[in-house]
């Protein structure tokens, strides 16, 4: 069995999220170094504020300014900060109940070590130098035992230019493995061969193989070389240039087709080249075109054979 392949895979996306009125006021407040909570029907103040009472589900919206000092309600020492976390040096995660609030806010607490942290300790907000209206406008909490605790000014919660949305970047890193069947397929592609797998039960040959027959629910295993010729079973004409960088140099219109390689019982798909787009047709006989150094076919082109009879591919549409 050939070596099972692995490759790095990065999934990265910016989520653009709109804010409701309470979230907008809270995050705009952070930008302006003001901390707002919301009052529930029974008079409790929730920080961070939400738009529905977590107990009664009642819609709430009465904003209350709270202090920038508070008390740690629980904590955990993080000696090895991870990517994206608020501080790059060891810190405590902490839930902090700000003075004037009845609930706690999760953030980082900058402290010299775990011995300097305890539940009940007093802390205050350290603001980020640059603030945009996000939870990260709070850089972290820091220990604070001063008596000087300015009273909240009673901000109304109304601001100039309130933020209405956030862009939350997310990145996750993986080591991707396609498993046994697809590794074998990709290895064969490296030799410019197309190798499918046959179902031991129904004898259908799947290309590319995924390791299982979707009809029988059993593992495929016998490897079967297919092609090099194939038949266009159906196609579409693409008129809009893709935004994806891999396709930027492909001129529109072009044809994207389902291609049943000879010996395969499932059509795969690919681009058709070497023929004007408006002359592509069902039954057209094609072959793969490999560009230099390519590990997979760049496109398929007519191979000069007469068109296939409809009955030879009708089951593969």
């Amino acid at each position, binding site marked *: 069995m050939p070596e099972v392949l692995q490759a790095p895979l990065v999934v990265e996306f910016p989520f653009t999220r709109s804010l409701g009125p309470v979230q907008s006021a809270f995050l705009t407040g952070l930008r302006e170094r003001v901390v707002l909570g919301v009052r529930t029907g029974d008079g409790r103040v929730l920080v961070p504020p939400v738009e529905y009472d977590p107990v009664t589900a009642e819609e709430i919206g009465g904003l209350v300014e709270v202090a920038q000092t508070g008390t740690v309600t629980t904590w*955990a020492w993080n000696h090895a900060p991870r990517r994206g976390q608020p501080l790059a040096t060891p810190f405590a995660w902490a839930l902090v109940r700000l003075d004037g609030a009845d609930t706690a806010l*999760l953030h980082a607490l900058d402290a010299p070590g775990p011995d300097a942290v305890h539940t009940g300790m007093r802390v205050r907000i350290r603001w980020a130098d640059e603030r945009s209206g996000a939870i*990260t406008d709070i850089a972290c909490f820091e220990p604070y035992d001063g008596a000087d605790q300015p009273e909240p000014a009673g901000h109304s919660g109304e601001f100039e230019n309130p933020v209405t949305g956030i862009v939350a970047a997310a990145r996750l890193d993986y080591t991707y493995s396609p498993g046994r069947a697809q590794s074998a397929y990709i290895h064969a592609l490296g030799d410019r061969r197309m190798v499918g797998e046959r179902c031991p039960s129904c004898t259908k040959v799947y290309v590319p193989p995924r390791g299982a027959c979707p009809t029988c629910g*059993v593992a495929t295993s016998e490897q079967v070389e297919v092609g090099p010729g194939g038949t266009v079973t159906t196609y579409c004409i693409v008129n809009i240039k893709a935004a994806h960088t891999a396709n930027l140099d492909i001129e529109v219109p072009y044809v994207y087709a389902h291609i049943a390689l000879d010996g395969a019982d499932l059509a795969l798909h690919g681009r058709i080249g070497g023929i004007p787009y408006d002359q592509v047709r069902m039954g057209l006989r094609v072959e793969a075109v490999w560009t230099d150094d390519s590990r997979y076919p760049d496109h398929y082109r007519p191979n000069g054979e007469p068109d296939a009879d409809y009955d030879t591919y009708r089951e593969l549409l």
Partner: protein
Amino acid sequence: MTREIAVVAFAQTDHRRTSHDLSEVEMLMPVLHDVLAQTGLKTADIGFTCSGSSDYLAGRAFSFTLALDGVGAWPPISESHVEMDGAWALYEAWTKLLTGDADTALVYSYGKSSPGSVRDVLTRQLDPYYVAPLWPDSVALAALQAQALIDAGDTDEPELAAVAARSREDASANPHAQLRGAVEQGEYVVRPLRTGDCPPIGDGAAAVILAAGDRARELCARPAWIRGIDHRIEAHSLGVRDLTDSPSTRLAAEKAGAFDRPVDTAELHAPFTSQEVVLRKALRLRDDVRVNPSGGALAAHSVMAAGLVRIGEAAARVHRGESDRALAHATSGPCLQQNLVAVLEGDPR
């Protein structure tokens, strides 16, 4: 409720640190074949199929549609999927059988945590406005809960170490478990939680078959009847919750009938030692209840399958005659955010 529904078969893979030699469907298929073979059923005999998984774990979009190849889903079958642990897929299948639309159901789930960093992946399920931008990883959040329990006097580090040791010792008898026997408690990962307080990271899959009424009796010598099942959720924000308690677990247990009579066995989905402390209290488990004879989630924790495994392990004990009334619990989210409780019983012997 007029229809009796039972777990009639259970299968799981070995849970391993990595399964990079297998795609998800390749990992899943042997379990599906195993559970079907136990009952003699074929895919075409199954009335409803429901699965649980998450694309984020392996970074593979629509992985659950590829996994369906292992079921043999063509021609089309009656099928559904939840982006949750398979225990919630089982709940959906149970409701489907209750309606009378189906007499049998196949429930499966799988998780491959090895391709990514599961501590970071799980941050993406958190509140996207106030919490996820801080990337608090799953161990950090569990550690906040553990410290709250220690502060409240509900536990201490030696007691947590004892939970870890007992779980891995029990797992010695479980050939599928990833961590078995004596395991070092190790250094702090996020204090107060040490390596031994945390679940192993691994890949695996599980499947069960549900059947209703006489169909269950035909398929299994001693069906594990689901006497009640319910799931509940805590408030969204961690800072609103009392992290030392789990009112949602207690409520789910009450609705599932768990408090009507004592259980003899409990399979608890507590990925962290400290969470077993919370669950024992919420579920009012007496000292004579056998907790996690399989070793629990501290011995094998294939994310998305571990909750379904709890139901399967509890049911298997009923099948084997080792339990007459068992409780199974599954959780999802940070610090026991969502909780499902099922009560399983065997016919009197």
